[in-house]
């Protein structure tokens, strides 16, 4: 009965959330900031969850997320830039004739293909990243803890350097970056408007990751995190499971990277520098290493406070004719850092720790409070 209550509550809250999204879609004009923040949060939530799968659940400290995101972003962008815009985008060095021929061929395919094409582009980018991860994984997954972190960090930088190198001008447009990337497509023939698409894609992907974590594979990942030797003695193949986690994490990071390309409409290699990985690591740590709901919550809180809620610290402020000092561009980042320190000091293990959001916990808290009140009265 409790389970059915929880299911009902979950379905209702998902419905409410969707209704809010549809309402925002109706009133786009005044809510541009909110919509854009929420979309970015949805994308970062997916990367954070995929990073959490690797760092939090499998215990592999990897910092290669930005690299895999850039693979997804570039692949998706190259596949999606409309043929008629190609010359404008590659105005300096021209485009590789093979890619142009492929794109001309694809653009001639029937409408039903064109409507699923953006999603196929996302998946192709993700698969490409997964293939790279499976090759690189053979080498880097032999490393442990800090060494793995440094190797993956280096890998991410190598990918970024490759994408901006002049040798790849015809494909990635080198240091000029790519623009004129089409925005989010609509889904199910317009049933889901473009604005809501990233939420649906992220939700589906995160659900898949959660199902994986709850399966026996997920248990094996956690066993590896807890104790490699004991896990191996149970018959869990360390290499197989580590590379599986690495590949799946890279797949979803790249998919989110592709969505980021659609969100930003123009990308360059600099977007995917180490700081992007750190931003995601921040989300994972704030949300709680080993908690999926924590990562989702962290993605929204970090994105919103970084780009929106703290904005007024950047404007000069005058109180009763007194010009408050320090209120100028960049001050919000100081406040943001202080807030982060406070959060980390209060919640040592992130907002959610290793727990997941559950209705039982919320109801349990209410009950506990009520009991305490009754206990005090008697």
């Amino acid at each position, binding site marked *: 009965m409790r389970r059915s209550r929880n299911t009902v509550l979950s379905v209702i809250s998902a419905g409410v959330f969707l209704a809010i999204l549809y309402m925002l879609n109706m009133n786009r004009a005044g809510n541009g900031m909110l919509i854009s923040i929420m979309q970015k949060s949805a994308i970062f939530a997916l990367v954070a969850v995929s990073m959490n799968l690797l760092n939090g659940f499998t215990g592999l400290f990897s910092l290669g997320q930005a690299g895999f995101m850039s693979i997804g972003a570039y692949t998706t962008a190259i596949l999606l830039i409309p043929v008629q815009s190609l010359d404008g985008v590659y105005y300096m060095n021209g485009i590789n004739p093979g890619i142009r021929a492929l794109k001309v061929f694809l653009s001639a395919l029937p409408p039903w293909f064109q409507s699923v094409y953006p999603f196929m582009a996302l998946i192709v980018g993700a698969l490409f990243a997964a293939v790279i991860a499976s090759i690189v994984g053979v080498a880097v997954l032999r490393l442990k803890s800090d060494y793995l972190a440094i190797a993956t960090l280096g890998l991410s930088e190598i990918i970024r350097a490759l994408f901006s190198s002049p040798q790849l001008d015809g494909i990635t447009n080198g240091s000029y970056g790519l623009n004129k990337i089409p925005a989010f497509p609509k889904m199910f023939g317009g049933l889901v408007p473009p604005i809501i698409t990233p939420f649906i894609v992220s939700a589906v992907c995160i659900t898949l990751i959660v199902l994986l974590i709850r399966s026996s594979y997920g248990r*094996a990942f*956690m*066993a590896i995190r807890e*104790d490699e030797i004991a896990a191996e*003695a*149970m*018959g*869990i*193949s360390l290499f197989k499971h580590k590379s599986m986690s690495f590949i799946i994490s890279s797949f979803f990071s790249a998919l989110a990277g592709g969505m980021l390309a659609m969100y930003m409409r123009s990308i360059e290699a600099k977007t995917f520098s180490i700081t992007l990985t750190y931003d995601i690591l921040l989300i994972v740590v704030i949300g709680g290493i080993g908690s999926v709901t924590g990562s989702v919550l962290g993605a929204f809180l970090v994105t919103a406070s970084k780009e929106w809620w703290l904005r007024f610290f950047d404007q000069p402020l005058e109180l009763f004719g007194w010009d408050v000092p320090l209120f100028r561009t960049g001050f919000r980042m100081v406040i943001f850092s202080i807030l982060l320190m406070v959060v980390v000091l209060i919640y040592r293990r992130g907002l959610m720790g290793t727990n997941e959001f559950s209705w039982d916990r919320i109801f349990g808290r209410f009950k506990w409070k009520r009991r305490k009140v009754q206990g005090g009265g008697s």
Partner: protein
Amino acid sequence: MSLLEIRDLKVCYGGIVALNGISFDVEEHEIVTLIGANGAGKSTTLRAIMGLIPIAGGTIMYRGEKLNGLDTQKIVGKGVVLVPEGRRVFPNLTTLENLRLGAYLQKDKAVIEANLERVYGLFPRLKERHWQHAGTLSGGEQQMLAVGRALMADPKLIMMDEPSLGLAPLVVKEIFSIIRKVNEAGVTVLLIEQNANVALKTANRGYVLETGTVSMTGPGRALLEDEQIRVAYLGKTR
């Protein structure tokens, strides 16, 4: 044919010889113990059998099949499991999750449930604590969990590395009665102990390991009465 036949097993760590050609047998339904001081090569023997470390020479035969060079996964699949030294339960997973991990290679859900019932039958305490994180269990309970987790794989041969390590004497007694119970249920036990007294009392046969070689062998009771062993391992003064 013995269940497990070790012939001339050699293991080296870098240049250091850990096992210098040891041979022993484990018959079906027996409890066999390897005793010896620190560094005699007891744990190394078990880890070599499990394929967790490479061996430098010799053969490991299990039911007439060669185990050398096989993956740990395959060896577990054949029914040989290890209860590692120091218990090594997964502290942040629940008792139930720990037990399910023991049956990781078993894909048949019905078999897993049956094994779970059997383990709960042996250790009712684990059933009471099935929702609790393994790290919060007491030392004795963790050892039960480690044994239970190994039993989830439905083993023919269970190998235990120092099950009495760090446990109170009363709990040690309990653990050894559990080992006897497991053995009566038809599982062959290969036991490694520093606590030679209890180990030899429980075991049908014992082998004494000294710096990488087997120095003595015989039925558990006989070894227990041997003057040399009493001096070397049981703390009796001459």
